[in-house]
């Protein structure tokens, strides 16, 4: 079984491209969990996906992706943290189920994770969930309807998906009553 491409450098490269940043950043990894490290011109570099992603957004002058108000910023922070702790830490089917349930409740009345604005949280959550979503059955996709709607929306957001496979969502529900 091929190991799934772990969270880390790969998605940061995708993010750079999405943000329109020039190529050529130097990345390394640290420790057993292969935490990405970005070499910067000044100092010892930056460690961790959240940290580097926020740095890249600022480099690209797209600060709105980090949220505009204090509230939005905190919400983005919260979901980035959720992504790196809960989603990346999930190891069993049960963990995955809880995550999808969490997100499904949260997204019930929201277009994006932070409400009505597209943010970095949506981008990284999309990258982090991709390997989970591709494996879902039709029935599960319908069970987590809000997640499916959100995910489908994000994967069609210009520039986000790149080379990742398109996850197919059926428009007509197959299992109408969720008994």
């Amino acid at each position, binding site marked *: *079984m091929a190991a799934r491409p772990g969270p880390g450098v790969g998605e940061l490269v995708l993010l750079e491209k999405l943000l329109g940043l020039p190529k050529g950043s130097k990345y390394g990894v640290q420790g*057993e*969990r292969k*935490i990405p490290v970005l070499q910067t011109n000044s100092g010892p570099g*930056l*460690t*961790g*996906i*959240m*940290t580097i992603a*926020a*740095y890249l957004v600022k480099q690209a002058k797209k600060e709105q992706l980090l949220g505009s108000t*204090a*509230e939005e*910023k*905190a*919400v983005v*922070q*919260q979901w980035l*943290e*959720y992504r*790196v*702790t809960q989603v*990346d*830490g999930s*190891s*069993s*089917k*049960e*963990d995955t189920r*809880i995550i999808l*349930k*969490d*997100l499904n*409740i*949260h997204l*019930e009345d929201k277009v994006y994770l932070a*409400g009505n604005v597209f943010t970095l949280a949506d981008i990284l959550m999309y990258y982090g969930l991709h390997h989970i979503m591709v494996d879902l059955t039709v*029935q599960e996709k319908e069970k987590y309807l809000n997640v499916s709607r959100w995910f489908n929306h994000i994967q069609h957001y210009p520039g986000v998906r790149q080379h990742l496979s398109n996850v197919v969502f059926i428009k007509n529900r*197959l*299992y*109408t*009553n969720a*008994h």
Partner: protein
Amino acid sequence: MQLRVPVRGPAALKVLAAAGAAAAPVQLVWGGPSEPPRAPLRPPWAPALELDSGTVLFSPNAICQFFFLTRGDEPTDLSNQWLEWEATELQPAATAALYARLVLGRTALEAAQGLGKLLTHIEQSLARRGAAFLAGDTPSVADVVVWGTLFPILQDENSLPSELQALRTWFQSMTLLEACRDAADSVLMPKALLEFKSYLQKQPPPCLAMQRATSNEPEEEEGSERALTEEEIAAAADAWARGAAALPKPWQPQKPVLPVEGMRNVLITSALPYVNNVPHLGNIIGCVLSADTFARYCRLRNWNTLYVCGTDEYGTATETKAVEEGLTPQEICNKYHTIHADIYRWFDISFDCFGRTTTPSQTTIAQDIFQRLLARGFLLQDTVEQLRCEGCQRFLADRFVEGTCPFCSYEEARGDQCDKCGKLINAVELKNPQCKLCRGVPTVKPTQHLFLDLPKLEERLEAWLEQSWATGDWTANARYITRSWIRDGLKPRCITRDLKWGTPVPLDGFRDKVFYVWFDAPIGYLSITANYTDQWERWWKNPQQVELYNFMAKDNVPFHSVIFPCSLLGADDNYTLVNHLIATEYLNYEDGKFSKSRGVGVFGDMAKDTGIPADIWRFYLLYLRPEGQDSAFSWSDLMLKNNSELLNNLGNFINRAGMFVCKFFGGTVPNMVLTPDDKRLLARVTLELRQYHQLLEKVRIREALRCILSISRHGNQYIQVNEPWKRIKGDEKDRQHAGTVTGVAVNMASLLAVMLQPYMPSVSLAIQGQLCIPPDSFVLSHDFTCTLPPGHRVGTVSPLFQKLENDRVEALRRRFGGGQAKQTPSASQPPPAPETLMAPIDSQRLQELTQEVARQGNHVRQLKANKAEKAQIDMEVAKLLELKKQLALAEGKSPEVSVPKGKQKK
């Protein structure tokens, strides 16, 4: 904004400190509902900040960040990095350290040592930057977040090793900050720590992220094992100590079994196997065996259980079969009923009664239901255009016609249903119809028939379905098939047929007709029960007291979920309707389908001839029960499962446990003094046992079997780790421990014997005999108790399973292979070698022949599709048979296998 703090723990500490530092105007709420509305699931102690906008922040770090943002402190790359590090690295380790300190009673210094590398990381960062705080010269959100996590473990800087000088200084200055001090005072008084401890105890012990990463190395398929809580372990030890006295008394129902007031009364039916054929393994697992396993489970739960089944004997198929074999329909039924009964007896199916549909009770009950439907206006009369064969001088019932499916163009569709697409067909809609008896072309003629007015019953049906689905367990496929049936719209359905072999229609003008088999057959459940007891109505007209389970393969669903319920709802006599409809998917054979005509697959009467015991068959079929999706029987897998799961895992464990009692303790269960590790095992077994119940209550038979195998796997590990055979030779303490391990293991074997009973009744009985398990302990509860106490004497212990050898299994595969092996010759699976090596197999020749057979087969199908002349088809068929014969010879098999009887006339 409102800050809700359910529990005074570390998370509370940092958010309060941050709120204090930012002088944020928050309204503080202690305790209260642990889950604010719409916030995703978090640990119950997580604080939540409810903003005026309605947004809820549930991450402690994000809450801290928010407070600092309102103060005007924008996050920097460095503070972000600390927050991320805290969430991913420090927090998991800190939770484990806090657990060690509070629950396991370690000292602060020991707990701090557990944080080793992480504390060094802070020390080095501080020292390298030379700044007073983590992200600069003034306290930032990073400092509050990291301090809040460390403080409950360390309490003061003296718990820190002295070489971490920079860290000690930082920690001290943080603790002296007013906001932090206030937060610590309000959160961490000793009482609060106790409160927090009780929360921790209810959680599984946290494991370090680093440890988890390594233990995942050989990636476990079903995720890592759930950790046990201290409470679960204590409860398991208590339950164990209560012993067999705590078990309920096994319920012995009176015969005949009748519903009992105040008990759970479970009525189980298995779809009635059609009498004209020998059932194959797929039929057996699809209904009778699945239902049997569940019935046995119900009895072990002390539920008052009746399991009925029987052969479905009326109908066209019997008539055709009778013509084929030159017997009367009744003779055919008698002959095959005996074959069925023998097969199920061999498979140890525990029917309370196995009847048949050709009885006077069937006529009485079916006619009664018919009269009631007629009286209530649920029957329609209509003229039907029907196929009539002038050659045979009769109207042709569905099964007497074959032709091309109007939906999927499958060429061998039957008149009532297409085997390929599964759709139900009206015989007149068939393309190119043919009389099955004389192969003549029938013509369409009008005739009178009676119809069940399903549209008129639809409303009642839907109301009932809604209620049954809400309260019962219907498998997903059963719900899905039923829903699609109703969605397509119900139409009146013909209930009469132009046949002789059936229940006569008691109405003038229809006396020469009989009931359509699908109106008639489910009534068999009632009439078979009526032949078992004259008080059958106490089961079948008693929905208040009786819970009805129907087992079947998925092709039977519409008849049990729509048509039969409509008959009963329309007849309106307080009938017991199905509460739980359990439908399986299909079982395939190796890579294809079972096929009697092609001689492919194992049929019920042949299973016995393999020399493999019935319980092994039961085990393997249940192990791959097509639950949720199709599955496939495979000989090599059967061998593998027998040798790995039964012989090496289950059999090995039970045998060792018993042998240790005999060899080391003279056949008497020794004294047991449980250590924490033993108690942990008890809790682990209890967990599996509960899972087993949970699954079986939902009739997930296949999955529940995994729990049994898990328990014996734990048992094997337990023996392996503790090595009683070595300890028995050691000192007093070692010998005592050897006794404990042996005693616990043999009690696990006793539990396994009971849990295994629904799956492998003879093996279960053998274990019961070997270990002398008292009959009163043969009952299932939710606890693992000590049923074989110290002093209990066991009998003679001997191995339960035999190894299956490759040669034997290969020989069986060849014997039952039919056309399968030659249709799929591949590099990875060389064709099996013949038993007598006359000539070496020419694999190239084999391949050529295989291709030729396939080509010729297609050619014949093409001719048939194009309605070629019969003579031409016959000639091509003869060629095909000759080719198949050559192929069989080339494979070293006797050619008879592939020349199916009964199809030659085609």
